[in-house]
């Protein structure tokens, strides 16, 4: 057992962190958030040049998969800098969907441009009635036209406004939450019948509800086999959860660092407030949450591509529970310890707080993963 990084891995991590601390400092980030698109193609392009979008792409299509540790490190650095570009959606989950479900021809057609970041493909999966259930899909795909016709509405599709392609899950058979009968379709964001209702999210990212009304697709828009997509969706989202946990650890550490730094410099009653034992213990508790979350993010990363599906789900859910609880505790206490400054937009801490909230709610909240852990432990 070892937790050491190779020289290459350390170099990659340093490179990403250096880049983000130079080009994604708080002011630059604010400017990006306020821009009409809400994300930066320029930053995205540079992240692509560093090879980061290729980490989950197989070698045959010009990538480096599986690069589990590299993905973990990259996500951690992005968390620390509160990056809003569509990395998790496209370079992790979207890529994993195409890689896991696509035919060799589809992988060749889609992945090379995703590996460079030229093409952005994000999953369009959740729906109003599905909450966090992965198999509860009501959107339908039926044969018609030149291939398929899609109808339905997807809820809170993160980064949809940035996407060239939407990877839409739809039912080709079955009903309710049946796992059989789920398929994934590659839908150009500009296809007739696709309508986006875009909005910012609470943490400053962009998303949209996606309305699909009689969207006509060619036969080869179906990714892989008809009706057999559930396991591929589940695997891609578990990889996504593991990556999200790694991002969370980056945010958590930045949040804790900002808090210790602030309490060391803020003086009340003639002393730095870090001298009050009540606050010291609070920060000690925060640290324990961060370290437990970090440990579990490693566990999730190591099991995210496991072929033992039950074990993979169990481990990933365990990690998300630990991380979710850390997000809540560390986020809330960081704001509290900053006093009034904590609830302003001015300092980084409130931005971290909101990202931690969004992470906790994304890809299954704490109760969802607690329940899945219990189910998968039986």
């Amino acid at each position, binding site marked *: 057992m070892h937790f050491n990084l190779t020289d290459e891995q350390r170099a990659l991590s340093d490179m990403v962190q250096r880049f983000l601390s130079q080009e994604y400092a708080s002011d630059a980030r604010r400017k990006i958030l306020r821009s009409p698109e809400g994300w930066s193609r320029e930053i995205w392009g540079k992240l692509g040049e560093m090879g980061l979008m290729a980490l989950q792409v197989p070698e045959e299509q010009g990538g480096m998969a599986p690069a589990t540790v590299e993905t973990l490190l990259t996500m951690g650095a992005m968390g620390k800098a509160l990056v809003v570009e569509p990395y998790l959606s496209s370079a992790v989950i979207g890529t994993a969907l195409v890689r896991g479900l696509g035919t060799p021809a589809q992988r060749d057609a889609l992945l090379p441009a995703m590996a460079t970041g030229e093409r952005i493909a994000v999953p369009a999966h959740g729906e109003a009635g599905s909450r966090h259930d992965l198999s509860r899909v009501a959107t339908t795909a039926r044969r018609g036209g030149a291939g398929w016709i899609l109808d339905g509405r997807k809820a809170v599709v993160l980064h949809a406004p940035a996407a060239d392609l939407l990877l839409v899950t739809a039912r080709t058979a079955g009903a309710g939450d049946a796992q059989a009968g789920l398929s994934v379709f590659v839908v150009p964001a500009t296809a007739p019948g696709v309508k986006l*209702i875009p909005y910012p999210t609470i943490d400053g990212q962009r998303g949209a509800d996606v309305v699909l009304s009689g969207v006509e697709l060619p036969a080869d828009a179906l990714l892989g086999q008809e009706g057999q997509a559930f396991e591929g969706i589940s695997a891609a989202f578990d990889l996504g959860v593991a990556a999200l946990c790694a991002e969370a650890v980056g945010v958590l550490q930045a949040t804790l660092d900002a808090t210790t730094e602030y309490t060391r410099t803020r*003086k009340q*009653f003639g002393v730095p407030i870090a001298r009050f034992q009540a*606050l010291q213990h609070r920060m000690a508790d925060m640290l324990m949450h961060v370290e437990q979350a970090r440990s579990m993010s490693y566990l999730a990363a190591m099991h995210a591509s496991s072929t033992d599906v039950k074990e993979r789900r169990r481990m990933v859910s365990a990690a998300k529970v630990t991380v979710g609880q850390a997000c809540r505790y560390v986020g809330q206490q960081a704001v509290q310890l900053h006093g009034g400054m904590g609830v302003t937009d001015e300092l980084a801490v409130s931005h971290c707080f909101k990202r931690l909230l969004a992470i906790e709610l994304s890809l299954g909240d704490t109760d969802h993963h607690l329940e899945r852990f219990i189910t998968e432990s039986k």
Partner: protein
Amino acid sequence: MDLTFTEEERRFRDEVRAFLEASLPAAMRHRLLEGLHVPPEDTVAWQRILFRKGWGGPSWATEFGGTGWDPVRQFIFEEECAAAGTPRLLPFGLKMVGPVIQRFGNAAQHARFLPRILSGEDWWCQGYSEPESGSDLASLRTLAVRQGDHYLVTGQKTWITLAQHADWIFCLVRTDRTGKAQAGISFLLIDMKSPGVEVRPITMLDGGHEVNEVWFEDVRVPVENLVGEENKGWTYAKFLLGHERANIAGIGGSKRELIRLKRIAAEERKHGRPLSEDPFFAARLAQVEIDLMALEITNLRVLSAEAEKRAPGPEASLLKIKGTEIQQALTELMVQAVGPYALPFRIEALQDGFAGPPVGPEYAAPLAATYCNMRKTSIYGGSNEIQKNIISQMILGL
């Protein structure tokens, strides 16, 4: 022991209910119950409605134009207002500066300021905190120098709630820099229109504008705006604190939000079934409901002690901590209840009458922002850490 209201108190409650039913405008009620933006006009209009009914000063003595209600009646009134969804009455005039002027002000100040608070003509704000003086309020530095018949005030206040709408600000200012910090503070009333007063907005984490910096540069304040004696301001501030913490538990508001949460949980689906039937969520919801029950009885115990003329003591700290924890827990559960639809954040959707395309259920729109915003409650009004210090020192004698 009797944990219920008396016959007479119940009759009073019915009277309040009937009045609210008849007099609270539906649009105001809608905005409050749905967590939408409450414009300042609502706050003023509601104060005026109460004033016309003779209820403009629910916690004031009759000699000052108040209702003369005892603490239990005041509590009932506030509970019923919260449950009905009235705009919150501004505490700055009614619960803060009003009682201070009544107790320590002179007859001229009574006549000049009190009626305009009751009628809603004057909007007051509270100027205590400064950038370097938050929890350690006594270290405040805004300076007031006496020059003949006026003071010259220079300095900066911060976190001033709704100062952008205010006509007047009551300030703690330093009039003596020698001796103990607490001994050199005075209580000054300042007209916000005075030359040299500048209000600068602070943007909150939810994008809202509810607090401000207030800067004073050589602001001339007539000496008749000094309340009580020079250098006695700290005593008045402490007196005020007792009033500020009355009904601080916010039981009525939390009960209203609990009902809203239950309504949301019944609408939302988990695994295709109502979320309210999910054992995980049901357990979390039950826990908050039980905490709220306990706090309600604790609050009534404090009230009855007050009714027996024992001043609200350090127990108020307990009410503040538990009250804010429950308010915050309710916002957390609401966010959890709506699942992914908590994430979209369209600030324009929080305005009443928003006509854009709907995203998720209507009730979901303000929830994440409210959750973020409500973190303030454990910070202001004496942070919860400071309240625990008070409990340790004043109740436990540690």
